[in-house]
């Protein structure tokens, strides 16, 4: 079965359907949002399609090698980065269509007014092992 990575962004995607920024939600709207996300993960555990997930901090830096014996070079925080990943979920499903359907469900998490957020999620196929029979 193929694996897909669902990516949620703090910024970088197109505007969601329900375009009220999170800092203007009420507490109960936030609670409902988080409850939906937890419930979504539980449903995937229950269906045998969940692999792993994590939310990411807004902090972070770019880092790279800078030559033998030298300390790593860092750059950041990501003030100029347009595309900032907020979290990811790795799923193992029967088909690409199923991955799209699940991403759509996840995107329906409630936002302001309890209405579906409709945020844009990124769906990325994970590389599979090379098949045995190719000719």
């Amino acid at each position, binding site marked *: 079965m193929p694996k897909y990575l669902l990516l949620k962004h703090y910024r970088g995607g197109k505007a969601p359907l329900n375009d009220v920024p999170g800092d203007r939600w009420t507490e109960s709207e936030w609670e409902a949002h988080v409850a939906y996300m937890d419930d979504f993960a539980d449903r995937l555990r229950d269906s*045998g399609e*969940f692999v792993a997930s994590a939310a990411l901090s807004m902090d972070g830096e770019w880092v790279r090698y800078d030559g033998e014996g030298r300390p790593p070079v860092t750059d950041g925080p990501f003030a100029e980065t347009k595309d900032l990943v907020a979290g990811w979920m790795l799923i*193992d499903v*029967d088909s690409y269509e199923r991955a799209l359907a699940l991403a759509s469900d996840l995107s329906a998490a409630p936002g302001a007014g309890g209405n579906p957020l409709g945020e844009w999620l990124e769906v990325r*196929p994970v590389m599979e092992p*090379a098949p045995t029979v190719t*000719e």
Partner: protein
Amino acid sequence: MDGTGLRERIPHVVNTLVRRGLSFAAAEDAVQSALVRAVEVWPHDPPRNPTGWLITTAWRAFLDQVRSDESRALREERNAMEPRPGAAPSRDDTLWLYFLCAHPALTPGSAIALTLRAVGGLTTRQIAEAYLVPEATMAQRISRAKQRIADRGLDRPGSVTTVLRVLYLLFNEGYSGDIDLAAEAVRLTRQLASRIDEPEVSGLLALMLLHHARREARTGAGGRLVPLSEQDRRLWDTALIREGIDILQEALARDRRGEYQVQAAIAALHADAPSTEETDWPQIVEWYDELVELTGSDVVRLNRAVALGEAEGPRTGAAALIGIDTATPRYAAVSAHLHERAGDLDLAALAYTEAARRATSEAERVHLERRAVRLRGADG
């Protein structure tokens, strides 16, 4: 893993419990508990009667489950513990399990997981590790598969066709970890072939043996893919090849062709050849023609174009690409290969780069990038 024949006993034990009146789902769960226990205990304390040990341990696990679980379904189970009058004593236990686990109501992923557990005798953890998912996820997948079968009816299990599909996918998916799934697929297909007399079952077994024989030659240092044309054929397992060819010839002689026999025939022609140049490509093309008729698949048409390119020249091969959906996996790679054979090296390099972009496995992506690099002359 065992050397005690532990896993070969599992189907029989599941069926013994089903005969005692347990549902398939409950029996399979109980046997899994016994199996996990056996893996722990047998290495230092092997039982004198392994099958008896498994049945007793599974039976106890079931009773424990009944006692601890207040669910209505299981209480009903206890009431139904008398053997069913309808259970046919002459049926082949193992065969019945193969068919059940390849139930048409299951998705391929679920059918494979269930087959590995109920027929293959692997633990949930081993299956989860092989497919790189958490054990809890795999446990749920198997449990839901059993539920689905129970809902749809045990009396309408899968057919030989669905069983072969499951085994083929298991073999072909290429996962490799501590548990060797390709070897497991070969074992399960061998076991099936010893119980059912069908040319296509033999065909699939032959196909697996012929591909398994090339395993050592298929990957180089660091897991690098080595294409057929560059494989060191001295690394091929000649005993497996001989066995595969014998099984195939017997199957073909019965004149009831199917796609696995035809695929095996193609693999056999490759196995027989000392090199790519000395391969009987015209005959391979004929087999592909037959395979196109049997399957109508664009993947097969692609492979046919490669063979035609070898048999009649790359331009003819490229012409055979017309009409094939360009979204077919490996289309760009095949197109690149044919351009390369035709001497259009710049076009070929571009096509290899495009093919790398569309690769679905890391090993394949690296392989295609290397081809592009080689053609651009940047790397001897």
